[in-house]
């Protein structure tokens, strides 16, 4: 029996496991890197063990430290979560060797599935349909397009689509480099690429007595860079017959490798209804909650039970209704999915029924979040903030509920993909169930990444920010607090406030006088009420409520028109504090990987000046103009913050 469980992970999945530990009376033990010391998963555990350092390689990827942590804390079992060492057979063996219970499949099963080429062969033999792998050196014209994949991969790392033979060598080289960096194994292979395929996977759960459940399918076709963004169960493309076929293939796959525990068998589903084995994930999936929401099965609970030797019933419970999950990332879809970091002042999703848990009722909203108000999003780890899942009797209802909750969420911190998720969930093609892996590309990443707040929303939000700021100024004022905002006995001009937004500057000129609110350039607007955190404006007879929150110079305004982040432009600035014209600012925090130019060098617009590395991605900082490099303000290897001046070009 497991009595104390070390959770060898962080963030939302660590919290998720804690939740089930609590339900079972198991004592949870957290681990944390230095960055994560004040994270919620640490606070919620009974004990927490420090893993000195920040980088994953120094912390969550250190099997030896994790086993020692488990022993130090008196744990008798280890749950790996997902990612990190969850599919590392060596780690599983180390755990077992230390006399601890490994909550996961047998190391041999992990190994069998870890090498994707081997896994394919194994499952093809067991009668599971597969796409034949192609040796990268023998790809021919008729194979195209092909997908280059890392044999040891996961999460899309090292994956490349190749549409012409000329691209192939470079794609293979990059994939090898990425795979080598991410997994320590540079082996890659190719397979036929289905342009319009759907990603459908089957959740399996196997006990050590030979029973294997297939808990229905999940569709995870909507992806960016092979990273799933929206997941649902059941798939709108899978009928009862297909489901039965896929489930039995998955059960066959699990049995072929002697699988025990929770796992996922991923398939590619073609237009023609034929499906092919992709890979098996020998762990809990990020998107496991959608299965939990439709089946009522607590997968983590069963992971622990199976690890303790419990037996499954002969038949899995049947699913009901429909569940959809979205992954909320601190990233900018409009800027090539650039990851964000920094303080998350507020994280508030309205109408959440349950966190991490299994809802018993037929509809609801579940939040699995790694962050809380005041968390700091680190550059060291995956920028996923939270998963939000809604379930309901119908898919349409689930989608509407999820979109509504997301749109109404107050997320005050780094830029997120929230607006994109809302646009996807409200997209007619999505609602029609017309989803495939090319969904984002088909419907225009730019259009989908566009903020929900339009120009008008920005102007009104800036006005609300100005007015709420004014009310706040009055309340905080040490003198004359009761005097009306901006009162003048001889009004001579409008009060002027200026903000910057992602989409440019917004200026507001206003006056609150006897005649009410007067705003330059805005007709028919009336102020209904103003408080430091809430402004109600009447535009052409429609009352609109704007919720306003300030953090330093950043003002977050949330309304039905969409959320807008504004940065106050100070009225009077210290000379010299203004960024020199032609300055190139770091778009994100990271390390300067390379500097490709020297001071005084002539450069062309678009020419890369230096390369920033962050989140294992390399971002070229390019010259915006034809000109001369006036100054380089950083050196190679330097760690820079977002907004720091890197170079000046004029």
């Amino acid at each position, binding site marked *: 029996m497991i009595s104390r469980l070390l959770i060898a992970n962080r963030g939302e999945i660590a919290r998720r496991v804690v939740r089930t530990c609590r339900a079972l009376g198991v004592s949870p033990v957290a681990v944390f890197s230095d960055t994560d010391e004040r994270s919620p998963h640490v606070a919620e555990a009974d004990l927490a063990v420090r893993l000195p350092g920040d980088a994953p390689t120094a912390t969550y990827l250190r099997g030896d430290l994790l086993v020692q942590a488990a022993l130090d804390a008196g744990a008798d079992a280890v749950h790996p979560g997902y990612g990190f060492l969850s599919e590392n057979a060596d780690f599983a063996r180390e755990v077992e060797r230390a006399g601890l219970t490994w909550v996961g499949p047998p190391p041999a099963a992990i190994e069998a599935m870890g090498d994707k080429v081997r896994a394919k062969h194994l499952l093809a033999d067991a009668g599971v349909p597969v796409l034949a792998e192609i040796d990268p050196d023998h790809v021919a014209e008729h194979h195209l397009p092909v997908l280059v994949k890392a044999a040891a991969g996961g999460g899309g790392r090292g994956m490349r689509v190749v549409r012409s033979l000329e691209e192939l060598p470079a794609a293979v080289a990059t994939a090898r480099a990425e795979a080598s960096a991410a997994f320590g194994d540079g082996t890659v292979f190719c397979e036929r690429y289905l342009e319009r395929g759907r990603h459908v996977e089957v959740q399996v759960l196997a006990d050590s007595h030979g029973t294997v459940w297939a808990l229905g399918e999940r569709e995870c076709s909507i992806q960016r860079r092979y990273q799933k963004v929206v997941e649902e169960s059941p798939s709108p493309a899978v009928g009862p017959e297909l489901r039965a076929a896929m489930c039995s293939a998955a059960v066959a796959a699990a049995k072929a490798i002697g699988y025990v525990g929770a796992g996922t068998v991923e398939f590619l589903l073609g237009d023609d209804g034929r499906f092919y084995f992709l890979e098996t994930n020998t762990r809990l999936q990020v998107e496991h909650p959608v299965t939990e929401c439709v089946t009522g099965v607590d997968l983590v609970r069963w992971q622990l039970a199976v690890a303790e030797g419990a037996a499954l019933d002969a038949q899995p419970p049947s699913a009901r209704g429909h569940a959809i999950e979205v992954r909320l990332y601190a990233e900018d879809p409009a800027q090539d999915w650039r990851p964000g970091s920094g303080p998350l002042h507020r994280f508030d999703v309205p109408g959440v029924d349950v966190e991490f848990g299994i809802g018993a009722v037929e509809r609801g909203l579940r939040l699995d979040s790694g962050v809380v108000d005041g968390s700091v999003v680190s550059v060291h780890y995956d920028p996923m903030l939270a998963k939000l899942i809604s379930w309901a009797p119908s898919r349409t209802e689930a989608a509407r509920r999820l979109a509504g909750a997301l749109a109404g969420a107050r997320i005050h911190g780094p830029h997120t993909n929230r607006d994109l998720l809302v646009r996807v969930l409200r997209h007619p093609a999505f609602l029609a169930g017309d989803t495939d892996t090319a969904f984002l590309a088909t419907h225009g990443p730019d259009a989908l990444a566009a903020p929900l707040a339009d120009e008008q929303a920005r102007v009104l939000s800036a006005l609300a920010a100005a007015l709420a700021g004014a009310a706040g100024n009055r309340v905080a004022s040490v003198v*004359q607090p*009761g*005097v009306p905002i*901006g009162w003048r006995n*001889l009004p001579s001009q409008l009060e002027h406030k200026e903000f910057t937004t992602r989409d440019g500057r917004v200026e507001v000129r206003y006056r609150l006088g006897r005649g009410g609110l007067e705003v330059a350039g805005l007709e028919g607007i009336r102020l209904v009420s103003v408080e430091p955190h809430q402004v109600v404006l009447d535009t052409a007879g429609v009352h609109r409520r704007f919720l306003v929150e300030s953090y330093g110079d950043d003002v977050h305004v949330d309304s039905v028109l969409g959320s807008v982040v504004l940065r106050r432009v100070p009225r009077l600035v210290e000379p010299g504090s203004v960024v020199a014209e032609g300055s190139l600012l770091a778009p994100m925090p990271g390390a300067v990987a390379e500097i490709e130019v020297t001071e005084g060098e002539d450069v062309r617009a678009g020419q890369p000046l230096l390369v920033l590395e962050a989140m294992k991605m390399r971002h070229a900082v390019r010259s915006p103009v034809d000109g001369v490099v006036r100054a380089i303000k950083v050196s190679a290897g330097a760690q820079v913050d977002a907004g720091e001046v890197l170079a000046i070009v004029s």
Partner: protein
Amino acid sequence: MTLLRSTLDTASPEFAANREAMLARLEELAAEHAKALAGGGPKYVDRHHGRGKLLARERIELLIDPDTAFLELSPLAAWGTDYTVGASVVTGIGVVSGVECLIVANDPTVRGGASNPWTLRKTFRATDIAADNRLPVINLVESGGADLPSQSEIFIPGGRVFRDLTRASAARLPTVTLVFGNSTAGGAYIPGMSDHVVMVKERAKVFLAGPPLVKMATGEESNDEELGGAEMHARTSGLADYFAEDEHDALRIGRRIVARLNWRKLGPGPSVPPVEPRYDAEELLGIVPTDLRTPFDPREVIARLVDDSDFDEFKPRYGTSLVTGWASLHGYPIGVLANARGVLFSAESQKATQFIQLANSADIPLLFLQNTTGYMVGKKYEQAGIIKHGAAMINAVSNSTVPHLTVVMGASYGAGNYGMCGRAYDPRFLFTWPNAKSAVMGPAQLAGVLSIVARQAAAAKGQPYDEETDRNLRAMVEQQIEQQSLAPFLSGRLYDDGIIDPRDTRTVLGICLSIIHNAPIRGTDRFGVFRM
């Protein structure tokens, strides 16, 4: 809590007529204020902007804290004279870095910001306010100096400007001067006498004599920058404490200077949280009758001024022609004296005297709401001692040391003006409603008196009295007195601190109460000898 209950009938024709008349006055007032705001007119405003410079009020708007109030003082100074309305200077009180400051800004669009006799008077009034209420002073300087044609009226009294600056400094009232342009000859002593001086690069010009005069005096060749540029004063002479890159930078530095003054108000803060009155200030427009001879109940006004319309009346059944009582306004305690039926009798005078003594013993500021036709005349009243009773009230007002605020709501005639703390009795602030009139007596009465005196003189000399001439004389006198008793005329002569919209009265008084609490509030225990 004692709530005032309004009996104002806002649906009555009188209310509508009063309101309409008041709105007409306000419209006229707005037109006069517009003259002050226009400064030197579009041509000079454009030229000034064209030089990349900010207007006086633009400088002030950037200087004060965002969304705070600015109470402009004496905006109609020089009204009815040959000089531009506003007297080429803007004065007022604003909040800078959380500190209430008296701000004086030259208007360079009016004859280069040169000072005329009215500029001086307006500035003196402002510096008096700073001294009485203990306010830091900020000068925003850009002035061509004295308006030379009127130098005889300026030169000698004008010395007070510099005297006031250093006396303020001696009284630990910080003085800050931001020099945006010319500040030459005598004007050079404004930065010279100030505690903190900021000069704008390539704009400030601070010297006793410019290149031509230096050439004349000593034969030396020189230029503006060498004689008085910001760079020179910041690096060489030491007259500038701070060198500003541009106007915005000067204002930024000015705000930082004030932020570092370690300013503490010496008076107490509000004693209770402010609560809005229960009645709408908008209704103040319909309370004062179009004909000032018709009395009105000042409780209707008080109900729309004081916190929560909560007013504890003192001696309500005694001397009923004067309403006295206690209230709070924007959280500050005040004692209110308001004329109810215009005339002050002996009882009212005695009641006022006692009330003022009570306020002094409790350190409570006083608010005078004037609508008085003066002390009662006639045999009965003279014999009952109206003079000594009126004198007692004037004695109390004169020697009272709690701050006084006066609002002229309607009539302010005769010694009533004195007893109710008119301008000569140094209220900390005095504001006028646009319909108000002040004079020794009503125009008709004054003309009538002149007529009677003339008729008696003719009779004494045995001469015939021409009724036609008398009618013309009376009409002429009546018209002249009427004109000179109107608010803009009196405001133009600095007999008030400004004409205000009645609906703004609570806000203005709230600001004033906050301002007066920069100085300690201390009532006297010594009055003049009360004649019993």
